């Protein structure tokens, strides 16, 4: 909201400089976002929080300055001679819930012209457009006391009367901005005998607005239900100075006074002949709300020791009624313009604000430390260990959007039904309409983004969530996703491209770091991955995820021309299997012996088959079985491979003799020949 320093001083005799006031207001909760020098004036841009509709006017801010500087407010007095001869307006409120109070008066014999310079310059100083003397005064008064007003040309109201009611489906109105708007039962309107003439609390109608030919004005000063106005304004897509204030709650007790102030000013400015008695749909007096304030409790919340007298002074300065009732208890009565104050804690905030947050000491809570468990949860400890290992392995952590476009191709390939994809009901665009079911697409986005900018080596991981639906219940689940492509080594003596075994190795290292032993990679064709290089990762008998080379068809969709290796692992499965406890096992007491076996074996015999045979025979005595020198080609028959195994033997309780080791080695060789028809070289 724009606030003029000079105009503000009409209501409170403050002498300090504009910038000093700006600081003071900012530190009291009216954040001055900017000051614009304008001739001899300074205009503040103030951010008003949604709980303080009373600050949406100059008197409200002046009230604050009164409390802050201990000054005396100058409230303008209106002198108005009402005439019983001028007929009172006919007002019928049909929707009393939507319009708890409607005050109206008729001003007769007005001369509509441009405003005089005094009024015009004031409303223009805060960026409002001047219209005519009557309309300008309604705006002036709204800025002065916060009550939005409306002036109708009474002679254009059919039947000369006002009915406050809900609009009927199919009714229309052309508002003063020239737009035609369709109305329905959700919208509260001001109607004449036949048609809506204003959208209540939001905007007036074009054909009943006051113009230069207007002779009789019907002045409206009402209180409308904030929720109704808010919904209506949203539905119609309009926000006005009036609707902004009604949504936030105007002072229901101030309607009459505001109308009298405006009528008096219009009488004078428009040289009107008379003003009628006022119609008021709810003349019952607004009762002040009483709140008890326990001063000791207030100080306990704040960590201060402000005496009861100090609290009373602050609250009085804000315009509240304060009485000492018993030791350390204040009985506070809250007038209708401060309906935001409902409970003791609201008063505590007022005391803190005016006392000054700066004057409250800085202490540290006596709560020492969280008692149960570790300060970081187990999942977080595992996640941090994983992150450290992966960055250490050369991968960069990425964060991609959880919201992405729907991808029917990926969805179909993975067999995800459309109803299982969590869609956003109010998306910003189709680019971010659905919560991701897998992280793969986001990873490929990143690869594509980089390779298309000539960054060919991409090594990434993300610890994020995937989303799905269990019936009607939306679900989310943690996922670790990885992708690598390009060169893993590019030194001057050697170049080496990434391979599926690199990503497999990273996962193996990760599992070692997390104390996960019971895992396997089960080769099988998987959707979106190349059938020749894809596997399911199983941990403790549960499917933990997949690993593989991305299928060419999918790469084409992302405009990627290089091989990309990916993996996605379920974090809950990993968390469940992880064992972060470490215990020292003692170093081996006896030496080990190594035997190498060089085999030529059918290509179909897998490493896992061969290792399991060796382990079967040697049991715990074979502590390491390591394959190396895999070779196919010359000197090896087609359909066969040559491979070397290094088997390290050790017993925990004795030194193995040469004979023992040789005997095991011999049995292994025999069995490999028997099982796989291997040739031992």
């Amino acid at each position, binding site marked *: 909201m724009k606030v003029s320093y000079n105009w503000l001083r009409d209501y409170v005799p403050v002498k300090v400089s504009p910038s000093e006031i700006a600081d003071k207001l900012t530190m009291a909760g009216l954040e001055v976002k900017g000051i614009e020098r304008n001739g001899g004036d300074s205009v503040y841009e103030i951010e008003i929080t949604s709980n303080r509709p009373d600050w949406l006017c100059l008197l409200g801010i002046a009230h604050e300055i009164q409390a802050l500087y201990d000054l005396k407010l100058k409230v303008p007095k209106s002198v108005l001679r009402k005439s019983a001869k001028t007929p009172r307006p006919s007002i019928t409120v049909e929707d009393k819930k939507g319009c708890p109070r409607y005050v109206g008066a008729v001003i007769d014999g007005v001369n509509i012209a441009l405003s005089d310079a005094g009024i015009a310059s004031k409303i223009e100083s805060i960026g409002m457009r001047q219209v005519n003397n009557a309309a300008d005064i309604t705006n002036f008064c709204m800025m002065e006391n916060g009550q939005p007003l409306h002036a109708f040309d009474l002679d254009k109201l059919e039947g000369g009367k006002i009915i406050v009611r809900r609009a009927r489906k199919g009714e229309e109105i052309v508002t003063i901005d020239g737009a035609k708007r369709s109305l329905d039962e959700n919208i509260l309107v001001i109607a004449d005998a036949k048609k809506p003439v204003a959208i209540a609390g939001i905007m007036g109608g074009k054909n009943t607005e006051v113009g230069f030919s207007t002779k009789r004005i019907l002045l409206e000063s009402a209180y409308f239900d904030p929720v109704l106005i808010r919904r209506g304004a949203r539905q119609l897509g309009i926000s006005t100075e009036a609707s902004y204030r009604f949504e936030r709650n105007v002072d229901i007790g101030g309607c009459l006074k505001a109308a009298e102030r405006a009528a008096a000013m219009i009488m004078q400015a428009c040289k009107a002949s008379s003003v009628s008695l006022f119609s008021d749909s709810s003349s019952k007096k607004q009762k002040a709300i009483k709140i008890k304030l326990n001063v000791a409790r207030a100080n306990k919340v704040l960590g201060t020791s402000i005496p009861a007298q100090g609290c009373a002074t602050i609250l009085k300065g804000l315009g509240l009624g304060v009485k000492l009732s018993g030791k350390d208890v204040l009985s506070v009565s809250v007038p209708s313009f401060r309906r935001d104050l409902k409970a003791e804690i609201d008063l505590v905030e007022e005391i803190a604000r005016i006392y000054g947050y700066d004057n409250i000491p800085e202490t540290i809570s*006596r709560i020492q430390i969280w008692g149960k468990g570790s300060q970081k949860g187990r999942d977080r400890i595992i996640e941090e260990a994983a992150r450290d290992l992966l960055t250490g392995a050369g991968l*960069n952590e990425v964060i991609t959007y959880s919201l992405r476009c729907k991808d029917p191709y990926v969805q179909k390939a993975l067999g995800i039904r459309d109803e299982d994809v969590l869609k956003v009901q109010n998306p910003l665009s189709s680019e971010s309409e659905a919560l991701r079911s897998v992280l793969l697409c986001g990873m490929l986005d990143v690869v594509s983004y*980089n390779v298309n900018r000539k960054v060919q080596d991409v090594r990434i991981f993300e610890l994020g969530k995937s989303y799905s639906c269990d019936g009607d219940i939306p679900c989310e689940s943690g996922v670790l996703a990885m992708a690598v492509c390009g060169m893993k080594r590019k030194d001057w003596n050697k170049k080496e491209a990434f391979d599926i075994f690199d990503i497999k190795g990273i996962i193996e290292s990760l599992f070692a770091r997390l104390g996960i032993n019971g895992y396997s990679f089960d080769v099988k064709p998987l959707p979106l991955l190349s059938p020749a290089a894809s596997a399911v990762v199983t941990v403790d008998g549960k499917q933990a995820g997949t690993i593989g080379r991305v299928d060419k068809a999918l790469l084409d969709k992302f405009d990627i021309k290089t091989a990309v290796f990916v993996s996605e692992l379920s974090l809950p499965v990993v968390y469940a299997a992880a064992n972060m406890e470490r215990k020292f096992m003692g170093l081996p007491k006896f030496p080990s012996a190594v035997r190498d076996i060089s085999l030529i074996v059918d290509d179909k015999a897998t490493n896992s088959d061969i290792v399991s045979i060796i382990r079967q025979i040697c049991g715990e005595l074979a502590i390491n079985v390591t394959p190396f020198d895999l070779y196919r080609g010359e000197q090896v028959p087609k359909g066969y491979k040559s491979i070397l195994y290094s088997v390290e033997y050790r017993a925990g309780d004795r030194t193995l003799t040469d004979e023992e080791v040789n005997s095991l080695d011999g049995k292994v060789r025999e069995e490999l020949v028997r099982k796989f028809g291997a040739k031992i070289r």
Partner: protein
Amino acid sequence: MIEKIKAIEDAAGAEIKASADVKTLDDLRTKYLGRKGLVTELLGQIASLPAEEKPHMGKELNALKSRIEEVFKARQAEIAKSPVLPKDHSDLTLPGFRPLSGTKHPITKTIDEVLLTFLGMGFKVVEGPEIETEFYNFEALNIALDHPSRDAFDTFYVRDRYLLRSHTSPMQVRFMETENPPFKIVVPGKVYRPDAVDASHSFMFHQVEGLVVGEDVTFADLKGTLSMFIRSYFGAGTKVRFRPHHFPFTEPSAEVDVSCFICGGKGCSVCGRKGWLEILGCGMVHPNVFKAVKYAPGKYTGFAFGMGIDRITMLKYGINDMRLLFENDMRFLEQFK
């Protein structure tokens, strides 16, 4: 025979001197002193010499053997001392073979650093779901459904009453529903609001939330704790100010500004010439929130705070466009190693 001895000695001496490594030296030892070596061969020939020459030549040959042995030893020592430089290793100005190394995302780095400070103050880290209900995101936090205060929490809905949390505060309620005070927690996490993506907005961003509840937690504690965090994270000389503000779930509420660490508070383009940077919102937990989690009325007080991690990350590293955080350009990420 004497000539032969002389010839072998000369040849051995020259060859040993020319040898450059242990392997060559070993081969030479075999050549001269080995079982079938040249010296051994000569020794074998002694048998066929006239008897009067035998003792003399025997002595001569043994002397030769030990002389060659000496030369071997000397050369061996020399080789051991001199560095071996095969051709490829001769130019050490070539770049080294660097192991691969990756980096955490700058947002993760910021979260970790922020949490570190609070961990040091005895806070516990807890996390909550991103998909929330209206109850946890709004109602239990004293945010009325049809109130302008909701405007600040514009929200993505995914199903009836289910939404993507627009702040990390729902975890306050979830935590208090199951735990009793006293406690100090921090909650990092992703949050979502329907803001179109541009240089300073994103529909997905990150927050760290904090909550301290006990029987006598005060606003002064709030000030002390957050000031300590700010000085530890932004530097000991950082100025802090607590400015009254409004949040439905805290009262009294404050926004916290720190003196701009770009210009030192003098005013620059980053702080909008104000000298202050707004970095977090906080306040005393509203009694209605305690009521929502069924704590005994009036028994506890507490404070809560929340900060935008993406903004702090951008300020800290001088990142001028929020989109960079989620594009994941390797050339961007690798600057945070």
